[in-house]
């Protein structure tokens, strides 16, 4: 009888807290949204299941959670806490990215830089809210709209905030179709939304081969902190464009990125234990995250309008909204909003240029913040 009593005390029912229940519910909501609404299912299903797993109360003395020394989950979480998974994801992203649209219209690259205003204004906002400079840097990068970059930087600058930052980054990425359109419409006139852009020129194979090496050298000479992320991304792209390593590129953009996404999503979810996640700081991070996405979108759109003051071939300012990386969701949103005004205006290809430039921009921003704040 005493053994049964002892066993009963180790069950989850005894040590379950309200916080754990709320987090399990949030995990279920994530899975529901992924399955029913098709919101970023590749991310929300692993994160949601991870949140459920991470919030089952553990038995004292048994190494079970991601925070327990020697637990299996801690070994898997090692890739998150030491920033190993994000560069591997960048390798896969590089192997699936086509820089042709960017190479055919280089002025659109600047929109990817303008959208990074969201990162640095959020950094200032976080400082104003009382976060330390390191924490503010990690929170600011949410504005880069790039999940792996957010995880990478927070693992380096503010590991304690990794859970809320990762969840905020991925949640808002899933909400790009909700957050961006009102801001885009608010900041542009109908005439601007109707602007048609010239079709992109054909890019030669040599250009695509040279670009990853040259762009890596340019970016990392300026911001060496971006070596890891950009090195892996441009390496992946070189595998694709070199035409002689197609097998490696195919593995990087399929099996490898899928495996890492599963591990990353699940471990991030499992790290959201109620006692570390349900805090006032997390609420502030979610507030700042929403603000950063809005500011980044506005930054891109307004900079496109500013560029139009000097250009004869006008840019459709909606394209500026794709400067937040969130590939390819924000480019799709540009296409959708553009077609609401003119169903025959195809902006997707144009929007992909600032979109991939935004990935480079946010990695450079992360490199700068890491170098300055660590």
């Amino acid at each position: 009888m005493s053994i049964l009593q002892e066993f009963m005390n180790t069950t989850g029912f005894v040590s379950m807290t309200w916080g754990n229940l709320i987090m399990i519910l949030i995990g279920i909501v994530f899975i529901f949204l992924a399955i029913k609404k098709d919101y970023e299912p590749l991310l929300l299903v692993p994160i949601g299941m991870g949140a459920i797993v991470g919030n089952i109360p553990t038995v004292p003395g048994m190494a079970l959670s991601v925070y327990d020394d020697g637990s299996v989950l801690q070994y898997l979480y090692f890739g998150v806490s030491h920033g190993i998974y994000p560069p591997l994801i960048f390798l896969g992203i590089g192997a699936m990215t086509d820089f042709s649209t960017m190479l055919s219209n280089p002025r659109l690259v600047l929109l990817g830089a303008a959208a990074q205003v969201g990162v640095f204004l959020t950094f200032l906002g976080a400082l104003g809210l009382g976060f330390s400079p390191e924490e503010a840097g990690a929170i600011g990068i949410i504005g880069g709209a790039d999940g792996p970059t957010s995880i990478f930087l927070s693992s380096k600058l503010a590991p304690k905030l990794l859970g809320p930052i990762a969840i905020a980054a991925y949640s808002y990425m899933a909400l790009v179709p909700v957050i961006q359109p009102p801001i885009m419409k608010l900041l542009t006139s109908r005439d601007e939304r109707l602007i048609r852009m010239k079709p992109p020129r054909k890019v030669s194979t040599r250009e695509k081969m040279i670009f990853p090496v040259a762009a890596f050298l340019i970016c990392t000479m300026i911001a060496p902190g971006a070596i890891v992320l950009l090195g892996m991304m441009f390496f992946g792209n070189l595998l694709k464009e070199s035409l002689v390593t197609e097998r490696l590129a195919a593995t990087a953009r399929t099996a490898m990125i899928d495996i890492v996404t599963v591990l990353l999503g699940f471990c991030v979810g499992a790290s959201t234990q109620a006692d570390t996640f349900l805090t006032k700081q997390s609420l502030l991070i979610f507030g700042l995250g929403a603000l950063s996405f809005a500011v980044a979108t506005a930054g891109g759109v307004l900079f496109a309008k500013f560029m139009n003051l000097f250009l004869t071939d006008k840019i459709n300012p909606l394209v500026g909204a794709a400067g937040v990386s969130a590939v390819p969701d924000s480019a799709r949103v540009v296409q959708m909003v553009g077609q609401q005004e003119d169903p025959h205006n195809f902006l997707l290809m144009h929007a992909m240029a600032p979109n991939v430039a935004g990935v480079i921009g946010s990695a450079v921003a992360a490199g700068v913040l890491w170098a300055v704040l660590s």
Partner: protein
Amino acid sequence: MILAAVFDASRMFKGEGIAIAGTGLLIVFAALVLITLFIAALPRILEAVAIVLPEVPDRHAAADASESLLPDDAVLAAIGFVLHSELQKQIDTAGKMS
């Protein structure tokens, strides 16, 4: 509401917050402006190095083109049928002649 309640703008100036933000944005712009300039100059650079680095035929495009030239199964079956019929006719004719 929560954000407004705990926000203190003076904290942004402590620890060179404004300077870090300004410099950071400047560095991001510098990197992407240089990339823009490089891309704009790339066609001219490629012209200059054309002897050392000639244009590589696009293998994907070549593969696509060669694939598109291949007839599909239905066409192959029709060609095979016509070929077989014609050969059969020739055999029959040759038989009659002999």
